[in-house]
């Protein structure tokens, strides 16, 4: 599994519950390296064990933790760069939804060996969408819950009012129902193309 995903899990636990909690979870999972590196590969088993460790340590269901990770990815200030990348998907939430199928390809443009699940968007009726998330062999089962968290946070980011529900698994794909009630329900967050991310400045120095 790609280190970026493993590292995300670690950063989420650290940033949300503190470093001590992370160390405890890593110990519980018998994860000896104690730190995931974003640019290395890890055994799926190792990442699964850490996630199991988090379930026990936090006393929260796996699905809830996964969804929280999705929200964290978009809303935490440490991930501003990622939020910006997601906002490139479109000028409003509907356009963003329509760009979701491109997401794995876009991710691979940046990190060639990052395998994200295949996404397929269908629309039932105006404003009602169904997103099928087909995780490959190398993806974490339950990725759909992460996606629910991401979508919920992105809806907030665009200022859209949406209803999301994870409908379980159909033919090996996780199914997410998305109902867009209103696209400009609230003031969204800014997305300024010109706001050069801090990352770029650091990398240049």
């Amino acid at each position, binding site marked *: 599994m790609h280190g*970026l995903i493993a590292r995300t899990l670690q950063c989420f636990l650290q940033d949300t519950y503190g470093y001590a909690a992370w160390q405890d979870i890593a110990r519980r999972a018998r994860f000896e390296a104690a730190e995931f*590196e*974003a*640019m*290395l590969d890890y055994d799926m088993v190792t990442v699964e064990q850490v996630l199991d460790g988090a379930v026990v340590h936090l006393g929260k269901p796996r699905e809830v933790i996964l969804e929280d990770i999705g929200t964290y990815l978009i809303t935490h200030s440490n991930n501003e*760069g*990622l939020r*910006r*990348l997601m906002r*490139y998907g479109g*000028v409003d939430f509907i356009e963003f939804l329509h760009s979701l199928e491109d997401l794995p390809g*876009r*991710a691979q*443009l*940046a*990190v060639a060996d990052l395998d994200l699940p295949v996404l397929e968007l269908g629309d039932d009726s105006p404003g009602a969408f169904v997103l099928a998330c087909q995780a490959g062999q190398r993806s974490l089962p339950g990725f759909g819950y992460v996606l629910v968290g991401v979508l919920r946070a992105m809806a907030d980011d665009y200022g859209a009012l949406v209803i999301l529900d994870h409908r379980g698994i159909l033919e090996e794909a996780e199914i997410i129902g998305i109902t867009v009630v209103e696209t400009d329900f609230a003031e969204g967050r800014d997305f*300024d*193309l*010109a706001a*050069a*991310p801090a*990352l*770029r400045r*650091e*990398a240049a120095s």
Partner: protein
Amino acid sequence: MILPSDTLDALCPMHMHIGADGGVRRMGPTLRKLMEGAAGEGAQFAEMMDVFRPRRVGTVPDLLALSGRRLQLRLCRGSQMVLKGLAMPDGQGGVIVNMSFGIAVVDAVREHALTSTDFAVTDLAIDMLYLVEAKSAAFEASRTLNRRLQGAMLAAEQRAYTDTLTGLRNRRALDHVLQRLLLEGGNFALLHIDLDYFKQVNDTHGHAAGDRVLQAVARVMLELTRKDDTVARIGGDEFVILLVGLTDRVRLSALAEQLIHRIERPIPVEDVECRVSASIGIAFGAPKTGARPGAEELMERADSALYRAKRQGRAQHAFDEPTPVEDLR
């Protein structure tokens, strides 16, 4: 066929429509933004933009002659940025010049606070901006890993070259420095130091006391040598000091005596005082006579000098080469 202006604006937000008389008929919304409000429509196109490649053009026929070619031009108003351009006839004697930022798009977006609506939806500019940001993030992650690995490598190297008890260099580090000095060919002195009465300290007061003595001796050696000298512990109570460029026998003798003198000071360990002394053998990297020794031979020479020092009754130092008579004068 002439297109409705809204259509042209949407398809080519950075176009300039020039009439047969050279007057600017219309500019796309993004181009207007770049001109920063400078009056456009009605002016002569040559006042608005300066086409300088493949050659300078000032008239509509000149521009038409370059249709289909890649143009480089500079806006004369507003940002005055350099753009890529393509000029094609409008079918009515005029020209439509469509423009693009090329790779300068990242800077252009920042300078003019452009948004995605300033680009045609078919334009790859937004995808390029996305890619630049995504690649920067990925690259930064890579660099972070590299920095961490480098830090870990330096720490591991440091550990591999350090004697953990005293913090001095170890045998491996000494071999490394010695090889380098011999290769460089300059002269240097090698002091082989062996503690006297150390075994008694160990036997009487235990190993912990022995360790404290070794640490105290190491401190003395560091204090009496220069920053660039190499001080290494190469065995239980055996040390080697490499002194680069210092080959003056008088100064070396003085240093050796000072080392012995300081090492002989009682070392308090808990409630006892431990006393040791030292014998020192000194050899040179570039001896006055004979061929340059290899690392092994040099160590042997220092070792036999040390042996002589010990035989002279300990707490002494001896040189590998007998002191030439002229040096004594």
